[in-house]
């Protein structure tokens, strides 16, 4: 199975190609230049793996949550490539990709969502794979949902920005943190592989971002009632 995965949900561009059992990676701090470098770097990595787009089994992408613009670039690229090369696509939740990238098996994944909030989920890995103990959601860092037990690992940028608040909320339950960890394409590929194997990948138009934050504007009637975002 040959897969291409990409993530543009953070300020990094992360690419991975799995050719049979060999993985090729490319990760770079892209800032706001994802659009300028993603396709040239995909071509570069394909060359390195000695593959053509048409040799791929499918495409996987970090679907979010994350930067709205970033996850839409990934979705747009997944749609364009998937439609043009007739490849199935799998969107992977970036919080689960963080959990996979951590190497741990009990993970509280938090991404800085700006505006004083975090994207949050808690996962436990068992024989069947990752189980979401707490589904992805949007929270204030001082009002995160409780988890059971100890030995959790805290990962992602949320732990960077709100480390103290999260440490207080999960006092005594978190054994270590990896605040600098990113939703890597190499983790996206690992999570996507069983979905391709199960034949559950979808056609390209289903490459749609996961936003979590869905209230982005007030309707006229809501504004008139004095509501705020």
């Amino acid at each position, binding site marked *: 199975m040959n897969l291409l995965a990409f993530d543009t949900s953070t300020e990094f561009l992360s690419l991975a190609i799995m050719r049979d059992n060999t993985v090729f990676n490319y990760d770079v701090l892209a800032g706001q230049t994802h*659009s*300028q*470098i993603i*396709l*040239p770097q*995909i*071509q570069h990595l394909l060359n390195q793996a000695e593959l053509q*787009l048409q040799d791929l089994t499918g495409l996987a992408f970090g679907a979010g949550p994350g930067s*709205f*613009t970033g996850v*839409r*670039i990934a*979705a*747009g*690229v*997944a*749609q*364009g*490539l998937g*439609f*043009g*090369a007739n490849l199935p696509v799998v969107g992977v939740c970036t919080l689960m990709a963080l959990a996979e990238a951590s190497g741990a098996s009990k993970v509280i994944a938090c991404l800085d969502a700006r505006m004083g909030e975090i994207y949050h989920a808690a996962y436990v890995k068992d024989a069947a794979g990752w189980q979401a103990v707490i589904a992805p959601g949007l929270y204030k860092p001082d009002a995160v949902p409780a988890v059971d037990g100890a030995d959790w690992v805290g990962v992602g940028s949320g732990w960077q920005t709100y480390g103290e608040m999260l440490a207080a909320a999960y006092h005594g339950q978190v054994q270590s943190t990896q605040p600098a960890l990113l939703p890597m394409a190499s983790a996206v590929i690992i999570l996507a592989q069983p979905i391709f194997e199960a034949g559950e990948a979808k056609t*390209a*138009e289903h490459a*749609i*971002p996961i*936003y979590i934050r869905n209230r*982005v*504007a*007030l*309707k*006229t*009637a809501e*504004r008139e009632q004095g509501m705020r975002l």
Partner: protein
Amino acid sequence: MLVLGVESSCDETGIALYDTDHGLLSHALHSQVEMHAEYGGVVPELASRDHIRRVLPLTELALKDANKTLQDIDAIAYTQGPGLSGALLVGTSFAESLAFSLQIPTINVHHLEGHLLAPLLEDNPPAFPFVALLVSGGHSQLMRVDGIGQYELLGDTLDDAAGEAFDKTAKLLGLGYPGGPALSNLAKTGKPRFKLPRPLLNSGDLNFSFSGLKTSVLTLVNQHQPLDDETKADIAYEFQEAVTEVLTIKCMSALRETGLDNLIVSGGVGANAKLREKLNAATKRKLCKVSYPRLEFCTDNGAMIAFAGAMRLKDMQSNTDKNYSFSVKPRWNLSELQAP
């Protein structure tokens, strides 16, 4: 050559196929107008979220309607700007990635060039050179057009665009958003009763100003509280008279100053029946010709982008070392364009 056009610069997703031998083969459009209406204006983030859901299904629809497959496409043209950056990025990333997978060239189109050239999609298209009036919610410009990419700005609005003035005045009259078309509709039942100013009519240049009109309407509205339906209609009538009269007279001045006898009108306000009536009469009196796009191509669409792209195939052919790096130009001055 078959060109796929992709438009996603604001609140309409448009896809079209233009064949350089056989003309426009198909076009598909989704307007987000109803979605934004509840918010009283275009919400950029929601616009982007909608584009990413529409762009691929509309492409499939356009291909099916034209009885073509992806492999028939020779180049992909897309709107690179100006517009909402997040919205532009959706069409851009999809178009570039699709072109990458098909290994075909892309053509970056300026949205306003698309509008400017839209009347050329019709039968008996106007020949260069001509004067173009571009009037929409975002623009009110007069241009001299000598050919593709040869645009000289003759006049511009100093404040609000004409379409913006329509929408804001409609709001003052309680007609909701987007109120421009509703205002024109209401004006049909209005009578000449009020007198609004004709801004910059005798300014000696070809510039426009519409924000003062809105203030004058506000004064009228305040003087006639509570507003009855008849008063609303009479205000709408006079407002439309004022805007369309100024636009018409400035167009005629532009024709006179350039010595040209050919006018084209494009953009959403170009669909306004009263404006068309006045321009038809004025150009006829001066033995000039006036051309419009069909009504559905006055507003944003993929057909004008596919067409503008096809007119710039030369640009594409000179761009052979393409590496599919892409970016958008939310602000992009039309005068930066060059002839292909």
